[in-house]
């Protein structure tokens, strides 16, 4: 089977995306980091390409280069025939304005609070010089086409995460771009909301016949792809058709480098399927899945504390009169990993907050470390959390100027705990953070920072570990790593509770609590 390089769409004078031998270097205080190392890639008109790869592999950098935000250090990149070499300047600006649609991971970064949804969708048209009335009319039409008319007059802050991201997609496509670049557009969404966004993306790019480059960790994104490529260490590693075999990319810069005569002689000019045999590896068939590293038991003591660590009885949670969780019972036992699932807005995060006394339930009782939280004031709740619960959530702030070890130590200091280098080092090692020691966390990637936040919670040594979407920025490998660490934490005696829709973590759970019973659990 050969991979189609050009889908059946109208020919164009230039390919929407052409990248050849692309290098991109970042200067850092301790030296230069190469984010892209000779990457080559093309995208055909109307093609939907999904780009996956581990954290730090260069996916986001590739998108930034394609968006003209970062100049390549070497090599060639062009979008719709516009060369994005250093100094592209005005051409890059025109490209972004007229030919590109950019979808960010966080909708909040794409929508302005001072504008309503209609003006947000029409903003790019306005930037291009369209009058306000015309821009609003076209935005209205766009929203109608995408089934979002009911949101047109709303303010961004009133939208749910899924709604905001769908509006952001509309805003990125309202001007009819020929190429859409999407960076983890569903990173903060549950699986159901993510599906809606994917569907919307497909509909939108089909309407405008645009090519789509979608960078994601979400395996489910492959369902909308014409082609999938994986980037490793700044190079194209593999590529495959959805549902098909992965093929190793073999070229002068790829992970597998074969002399061109040899490639030519076997008809493998671009990619091969690798098959291990007793005598070696045969390059023709499907490859093996990514091996998960073998872990040793954690060097941590078994956690002492009341059992259960936390307990919620007939808890209801409501906001502005709207009940999001109704009469739920949860018991978090030491030594157990509990995953709370459910679609966006189903109250996963709210339940976690209630469990650790960051919010009050509308009804029901919550016990943390055996204490009824309703009897405690804000200060007493903080004091109880200090000894009973650690949270790694999306709202965790890291000390940007400190490295991972210092952040972990600071976490213990904040709880009034003595220094425990053994415990800190153990969790840092388990989370694969040892190479990051000595680097300020402000310089780390999003996925690395997320793991630092988990380490920070674990080193506290408290009975209850609470995690909110702990793998939202992690690639598959590291998501598996984190899932394993959570299992280890439970084995060490912690009660671990985690709100997520990541199937990897769901798969590791001792118990899954689905808050949205009307929808099937992803498990």
């Amino acid at each position, binding site marked *: 089977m050969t991979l189609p390089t050009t889908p059946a769409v109208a020919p164009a004078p230039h390919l929407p995306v052409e990248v050849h031998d692309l290098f991109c270097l970042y200067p850092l205080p301790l030296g230069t980091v190469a984010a892209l190392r000779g990457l080559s890639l093309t995208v055909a008109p109307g093609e939907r390409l999904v780009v996956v790869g581990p954290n730090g592999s260069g996916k986001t950098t590739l998108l930034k280069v394609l968006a003209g935000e970062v100049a390549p250090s070497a090599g060639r990149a062009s979008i719709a025939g516009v060369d994005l070499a250093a100094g592209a300047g005005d051409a890059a*600006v025109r*490209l972004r304005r007229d030919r590109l649609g950019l979808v960010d991971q966080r909708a909040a970064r794409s929508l*302005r609070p001072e504008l309503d949804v209609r003006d947000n969708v029409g903003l790019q048209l*306005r930037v291009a010089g369209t009058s306000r009335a*015309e821009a609003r009319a076209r935005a209205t039409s766009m929203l109608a086409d995408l089934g979002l008319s009911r949101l047109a007059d709303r303010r961004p802050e009133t939208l749910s995460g899924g709604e905001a991201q769908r509006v952001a997609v509309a805003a990125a496509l309202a001007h009819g771009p020929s190429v859409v670049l999407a960076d983890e557009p569903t990173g903060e969404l549950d699986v159901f909301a993510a599906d809606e966004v994917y569907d919307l993306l497909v509909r939108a790019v089909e309407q405008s016949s645009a090519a789509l480059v979608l960078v994601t960790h979400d395996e489910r994104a492959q369902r909308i792809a014409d082609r999938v490529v994986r980037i490793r260490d700044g190079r194209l590693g593999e590529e495959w058709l959805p549902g098909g075999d992965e093929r190793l990319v073999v070229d002068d810069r790829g992970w597998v480098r074969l002399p061109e005569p040899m490639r030519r002689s076997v008809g493998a000019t671009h990619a091969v399927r690798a098959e291990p045999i007793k005598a070696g590896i045969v390059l023709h068939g499907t490859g093996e899945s990514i091996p998960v590293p073998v872990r040793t038991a954690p060097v941590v003591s078994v956690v002492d504390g009341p059992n259960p660590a936390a307990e919620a009885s007939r808890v209801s949670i409501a906001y502005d009169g709207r009940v999001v969780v109704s009469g739920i019972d949860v018991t978090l036992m030491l030594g157990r990993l509990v995953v709370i699932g459910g679609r966006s807005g189903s109250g996963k995060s709210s339940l976690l907050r209630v469990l650790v006394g*960051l919010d*009050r339930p509308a009804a029901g009782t919550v016990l943390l470390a055996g204490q009824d939280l309703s009897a405690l004031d804000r200060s007493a709740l903080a*004091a109880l959390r200090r000894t009973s619960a650690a949270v790694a959530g999306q*709202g965790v702030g890291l000390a940007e100027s400190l490295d991972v070890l210092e952040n972990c130590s600071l976490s213990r200091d*904040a709880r009034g705990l003595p220094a425990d280098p053994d415990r800190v080092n153990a969790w840092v090692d388990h989370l694969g953070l040892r190479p990051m020691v000595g680097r300020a966390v402000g310089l780390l990637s999003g996925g690395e920072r997320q793991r630092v936040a988990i380490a920070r919670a674990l080193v506290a040594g408290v009975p209850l570990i609470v995690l909110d979407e702990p793998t939202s920025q992690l690639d598959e490998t590291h998501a598996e790593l984190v899932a394993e660490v959570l299992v280890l934490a439970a084995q060490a005696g912690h009660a671990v509770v985690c709100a997520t829709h990541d199937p990897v973590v769901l798969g590791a759970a001792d118990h899954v609590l689905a808050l949205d019973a009307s929808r099937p659990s992803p498990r």
Partner: protein
Amino acid sequence: MTGTSASVVPGLALAQVRQRPIRWVLVAVGVALAVALLAISQALSVLVADRALRLGLESLPVGERSVSVSFNGFLDDPGRLAGVDGDVRRELAGVTAGVTQAQLIFRELAVVSGSTFFLGAADDLADRVEVVSGRLPESCTPTLCEVVLVGDGVAPPGVDQLGLEVVGTVKRTDQLLLSGGFAPSGGAPLLVADGVAAATEISALTGFQRVYGWVAPLDLGRLRALGVNSYLARSAEVQDGLFHALPGLILVAPDSVLRAEADRAERSARRFALLGGSAAALLLGFAVLGAVGLRRDQGELFALLRRRGATSRQINGLAVLEAAGVVMIGAALGLLAGAAVAWWLGNREGLDGANTAALAVTASLLGVALLAAAALLLVVTTLVWPPEASARAWRLLDMVLVVSVLLIAVALSRGGVAAGSLDQGIDPLLVLLPLLAALATGLLAARLWPPLARLCQHALPRRWLSPRLALIGGLRQPLRIAGTTAFLAATVCSVVFAGAYQSTLAEGAADRASFETGLDARAQAGTSLESPLQISSLEDYEALAPGAQATSVVRSAAGARRGALDTAAVQVLGIDPTVLSSIRRWDRVVGAGDPAALAGRLSTPAPAAGAVLPPGRVFSMQATGPLRDIAVTAWFRAADGRESGVPLLLSGWRAGDSPASEAGRLTAEVPDLGSPVTLYRLVMRQPTDDATRRAHRLGEGPVDLPVVAGTMSFAEPRVGTSTIAGAWSGWGSPGGETTVAGSTLIVAVRLTGLALVAGPGLGEAETSLPVLADPETAALAGGAGTVSLTLGSSAPITVRVVGTVPRFPTAPERFVVGDGAALSGLLDTRGPGEGNAREVWITTPDGGGSLRAPLGLAPYERMNTTIRVDRQAELAADPVARGASTMLALAALVALLVAAVALVLLVVSDRRDGAGELYAWEVDGVAPSALRRLLVARAASVVLVAVPLGLAGGLLLAGATARLVGLTATGAAAQPPPQLAVGGRWVAAVLLLGVVGALIVAAVVAALALREPMPERVRS
């Protein structure tokens, strides 16, 4: 597509400002404060100039506070007089709206009895005088003119012979009536007729010289409206117009006073511009802080627009449009506020408030434009500077810091600046010095905060959680904290500078008053030219106030040779050495040495005092010698140093065989010098008439003349009938011509010089006088440490420098100070009377205040007296000084207020923008109380870095300014030079009211934070 790519910008700009109104308001407030301060400084400048002008005019005699036209000559023809009158009134209307009065005065007239009087005339006499007795004149014809006597005098008899009839006595109600240049002199009575034209035609006075005049009050309103320079220009035009109308018409106006006060006001205006401009520029930092608060949101907007394809022009245009609107609103509000304050100040000072406001606004427009442009540039740069270029921003700030320090170094290396050079504005660096120093201090503080915070967060004990978290969190986004640190440091620098400089100026006024008086009061000869000791004795001066002590001071001009052809002028001062310890503010006024030790070095044995005279009025003695060819003067001296020379009159002259055998009695009246009085000098010289004739014969004749010579002997003198036994004991003369034989003094006279002086102790070799000297004069001393000083044509005196001091009260730059009695003796040897004390210094326990009343009474009112506390108050009350003080205080208060607000804003911003961080720590179990302490600790960290640096910067700046700008608070060159005074009260006020107060408010704000029942969920 019907729009343009720029059309999106205004709408977005408006939406942005609406979305974040508070932070934009802060930007506008910063600009408004800066602009208002600038306008207020201009208003103060206007007010100070006006006040200085008023005081200058008030110091003039009443009659000189006018504009007048005079004509010395005859205007006999009524038609011509009327024509000239019309011309003058028309011209004068150009400089004054006041009523112009015509007047006339004849030269001093005499009647047959020999009595003299003045005759004047004035139009509308009834409106200008008040009848004391009799009545007003009712008619004036060429043959009989009714007149009135002005004042308390008596009309001379016989004026009727001139066709005048005195019908009453009046007193002036119009102080301009025949005053100033028309005022009679010499005390002769003044008669006034009603009507200039009528008096002109008095037939008896047809040929008598007279002066016509037109006088009008000085129009302060016109002066204020035109400004001094325009007024003076108008005055010159009027003078030209008068000349064209009638040559000889002379305009008299206090132009020189106006010019002097205008110059002073100009100088003060430059100072206010310096202060106001610096303070205003500093306040722009507040606008920048507001912009820093907007950076995050603006950055997100710009990033989105960039991703949406917006051009740099659109993004920059958006930033400029947002900032320009806010800056313009701020500037307009600032101008309005400044105008309102100017209006209020103007009204309070009795000026036209609207005019004052208009002047202040007009004068500050250029500065406002520059400020607004600077604010726009700073705000836009702050908004659009990309976050990823923070390293470049720091490098840029480092460069600005280095350049500022270099410019400061250049300014300091240029040395001192005098008042004149400031007038000419030749050193812009000096004007910029306060701003540069505040800028450098602020940047240094901003640069130091991050490393110090990093150092401290490692060094602090682990249990000090709140301070550690405060520093760690602050390092996450250091721009706002560093900016606040910079602003606070610059503000503290500015405030401390203002306080220290104000204190330095105030101390400078006290120093100057002390320098001008020496002790607590100084009495010198007044217009009567009587020296203080001629008016009263030291005992009487000491009796003027309880505890008063008086000392006489001898002062003489001398020359010190410093080369073959060059002589430096040196003032020689003689003073009682024990008085040195009583000199006020010695360390600042004199500037070196221990007064007691120096007094010990100056002490000299008292010169021989001479014979004490017994009571009696007539001094006499028998004498032989060429008594008609040689005049003898006896000099008497009181114990307090008063001297009086009395020519001895010859009586009972008997001819002898030779001039040496002539005999006679020399007699004189003993001067009233109190008791005891000594005879201490005899001076022999050629009689004045003989000397004149001799000079003529020498000059005109072909032959030489013999030197006047002869031997004179003086028998024992007596007062009344009492003989003064041993009167000649120890007498001699510098040339050794004098011997004492028994009770007779024998002098071998040979008058090759002006005179021959004999006295007690004068036969002994003269020793050098120990003196203190200024460094330059001391440098003239040779190996022996002596300097030869020439006093007129007398023999030089030799002084020995025993100490060097930079300055001495009342002395010019070059001086020597010696023992007063010894110096007086030396001077009297050269010329009796030369050693007379010229002034008296008095000290009292209350600093001289108790001398104020008695010194104002007779006979002391004839002297020129200076009382230290009064002089100090006068210097402090000077409009320029008060204006500078007000400006400094205003700048300090505004800066203090803004700094306090900035500190509180830091806490508010940390609470709001750092909500995610605080939430995260609370999630970790950190108690809200610890988080509140975190907020306070972060503000305190700013204070701990900013305040010491600001204090140091402010003091260094004040010290440098005091050293560089040798001006007093009144803008005059200072003597002694200004020295840094810290102004402890100011510094305490800054620390307590400003910084500590702000910290307390910040703590209160922090204490009110995080009080909600549950933490508010925030994503970091």
